[in-house]
């Protein structure tokens, strides 16, 4: 056992200096004495919410502290040597040779002006691991193993000439090329669409198995890590919560926090019956100015009052554009939109104050949706003042009522966005929309930027508010678990068209069209062997054709 141990981190302490505005700088501890053991050829999943310290711990395996983070205590034994106190020249030999790294956004990590092959074999050459012909043939072999198209010539392309999923696989090839002992995967599939994620995940898993490399797999998605990891470590606030085999964590979690993570996607919502729509979209076609390409093609949808229509699709399918067409930011070139029996003017400038008030919008990034220099009181109070003429004490009371409604309570009204957490920011955005007493709220990926547990809280809040106020939601998302949790009706979009539309129970029941089938089967499920089953199923299906 001891001979097999590749990485042995003991009592790791990581600190950083924070600079709160208007206060003297102070040291904060990010990681409080965490132990990590990894045997050769094994995969350990590190999982936790943002701020749990999972990336920080992952990077410490190459003795690296990102952004001024300091590794201040404990031992990091790699192949039996403590690398924490190692000198810069020793680390230089080690990084990119014994330990390599795959980052989240491959698109931002490749040099756009160099061919892929140059970048993939760069570390091999600079470390003198192999000669150029050797490295190139190894890279081609890896391209083939990772299922990249035309592996012989793939390396001649530039980063912009390949897709995001292919780029992520090229980066995996780069990491595996110098035959490292350990690869750190830092959220390698988080930025990808579900339909792409499954291929990349399968490629990574196969490459890990065939090369016998050990890996740290960092992610916030338990369902994803369950497919690749042998063991899982759950982290929270820089401390270890639970560590066990994948089977034990998924099926028999011991700690409450792990149980919450495992059950987070089990929110269910009973479908409401069909009714006459309040929002009616008829044959809407739209394109951006100066282009010759329709982003929305002949879309017809309806949404009854008090219900939720989920619009699902991958990035580029036109679902956010649909929201812009409904709000009037992008006037459709053809078709009609009517609301509550009235036709809506195509551009928002032509709409009445009542039209504007009754359709509100909540955005994906609460950070950019809130003016950083307005307090919560100003932000929520402005619609009250603007639409209902409330002033002074009356307005302040109503602001507090709304804050209570979004379960935030007292003490938040005079804060600035920078003083709120991600989930609180999104709640304030919801309150701002609520303040206008709308009949329809358009939710554009409102939970995508949030951690699973926080997102869960937001979804529950939205459902409660709907039950209280009978608002309709147009819910745009790429996450099918969210759809199951809240939708009454579903529209599946693909390349600007609605490919499937109807009541939730109908849309999610077979027989499926090809795209919906692909989309549904690509959503990772929290069970062992899911990935293999899906791939096997697809192989059989294509053999059958």
């Amino acid at each position: 056992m001891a001979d097999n141990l590749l990485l042995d981190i003991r009592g790791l302490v990581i600190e950083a200096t924070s600079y709160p505005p208007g206060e003297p700088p102070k040291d904060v501890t990010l990681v409080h004495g965490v132990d990590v053991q990894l045997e050769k050829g094994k995969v350990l999943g590190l999982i936790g919410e943002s701020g749990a310290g999972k990336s920080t711990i992952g990077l410490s395996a190459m003795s690296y502290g990102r952004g001024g983070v300091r590794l201040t205590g404990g031992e990091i034994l790699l192949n039996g040597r403590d690398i924490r106190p190692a000198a810069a020249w020793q680390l230089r030999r080690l990084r990119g040779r014994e330990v390599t790294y795959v980052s989240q956004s491959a698109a931002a990590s490749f040099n756009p002006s160099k061919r892929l092959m140059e970048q993939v074999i760069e570390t091999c050459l600079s470390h003198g691991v192999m000669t150029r012909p050797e490295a190139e043939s190894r890279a081609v072999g890896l391209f083939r193993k990772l299922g990249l198209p035309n592996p012989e010539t793939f390396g001649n392309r530039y980063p912009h000439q390949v897709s995001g999923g292919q780029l992520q696989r090229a980066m995996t090839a780069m990491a595996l090329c110098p035959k490292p002992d350990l690869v750190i995967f830092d959220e390698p599939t988080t930025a990808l669409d579900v339909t792409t994620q499954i291929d990349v995940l399968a490629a990574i898993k196969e490459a890990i198995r065939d090369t016998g490399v050990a890996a740290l797999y960092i992610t916030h998605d338990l369902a994803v890590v369950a497919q690749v990891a042998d063991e899982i470590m759950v982290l929270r606030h820089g401390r270890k919560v639970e560590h066990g085999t994948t089977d034990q964590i998924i099926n028999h979690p011991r700690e409450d926090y792990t149980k919450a993570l495992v059950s987070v996607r089990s929110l269910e919502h009973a479908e409401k019956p069909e009714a006459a729509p309040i929002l009616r979209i008829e044959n809407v076609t739209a394109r951006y100015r100066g282009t010759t390409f329709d982003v929305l093609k002949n879309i017809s949808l309806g949404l009854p009052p008090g219900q939720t229509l989920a619009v699902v699709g991958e990035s580029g399918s036109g679902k956010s554009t649909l929201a812009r067409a409904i709000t009037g930011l992008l006037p459709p070139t053809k078709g009609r939109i009517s609301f509550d029996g009235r036709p809506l003017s195509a551009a928002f400038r032509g709409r009445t104050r009542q039209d504007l008030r009754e359709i509100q919008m909540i955005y994906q990034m609460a950070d950019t949706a809130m003016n950083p220099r307005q307090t919560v009181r100003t932000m929520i109070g402005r619609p009250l003042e603007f639409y209902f003429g409330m002033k002074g004490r009356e307005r302040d009371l109503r602001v507090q009522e709304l804050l209570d409604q979004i379960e935030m309570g007292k003490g938040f009204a005079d804060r600035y966005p920078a003083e709120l957490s991600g989930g609180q920011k999104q709640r304030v955005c919801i309150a701002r929309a609520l303040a206008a007493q709308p009949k329809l709220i358009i939710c554009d990926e409102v939970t995508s930027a949030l951690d699973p547990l926080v997102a869960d809280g937001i979804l529950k809040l939205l459902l409660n508010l709907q039950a209280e106020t009978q608002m309709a939601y147009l819910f745009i998302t790429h996450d099918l678990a969210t759809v199951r949790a809240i939708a009454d009706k579903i529209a599946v979009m693909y390349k600007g068209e609605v490919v499937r539309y109807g009541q939730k129970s109908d849309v999610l029941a077979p027989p499926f069209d090809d795209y919906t089938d692909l989309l549904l089967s690509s959503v990772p499920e929290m069970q062992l062997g899911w990935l293999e089953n899906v791939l096997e199923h697809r192989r059989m299906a294509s053999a059958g054709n």
Partner: protein
Amino acid sequence: MRIPVSALIGMILTAGFVLAAIFADIIAPYPLDAILGGVWEAPSAKHWFGTDSIGRDILSRLIYGGQITIFVALAASLLAFSIGSFFGFLAAVQGGWTDQILSRVCDLMMAIPSLIVALVMLSVLPLNLTVLILVMGVLDSTRVFRLARAVAMDIAVMEYVEAAKLRGERQGWVIFREILPNALSPLVAEFGLRFIFAVLFISTLSFLGLGVQPPLADWGGMVKENKDGLTYGKAAAMVPAFAIALLAISVNLVADWVLSRTSSLKGGRGG
């Protein structure tokens, strides 16, 4: 928050200049235009910087001149910022034709060297402080317009601005309540730099005889009055010239520091 030594020196010197200008009547040892001694007397205990071309006390004139110079430069910069940022924000928010027209007019004004435009305008218009400030302010506003438009462009595409538009807010609210507070830090830093340019500009105009007119004194005019003394080895013209340089450098030191603190346009609240 730590203030670097250079910025601290800049602040102390700038504050010194401003205080001297405000309390000129109390500080100045002699009246502005009293003839007190011989022509171009050397510095002495009575006249610290000597006397000028007709025997007036240079120190007193320097203090009163500072008052005029700083007042005109400040007023012109404020005017430039009011005009420039308003139209800059408007161009960014409205886009389309409004933006095109405003930007092209601005280009047109910038295509002609501003000193030449100023000389032509001032030789036609009556010469007084108001006209001077208006001409300088309008000419300088083109530079502010460009900056304000660029900064506001970045802010205008943020979702909170979109949210305000969708709420049905008027242009005034969008500009003054959503965009202005977020554009303030880069504009304040730029204000320091534009103020220095205004000091140099008014000094240049006065040196050429089209700026502040006698009996009022300003630093550029003082250089002009005493420039002949340089031929005879008299340093009188150097004193106001040195004052211009010192003010420019000290304000610059402060502006540099503010600029470095706000280099990120989308930075946090920062108090």
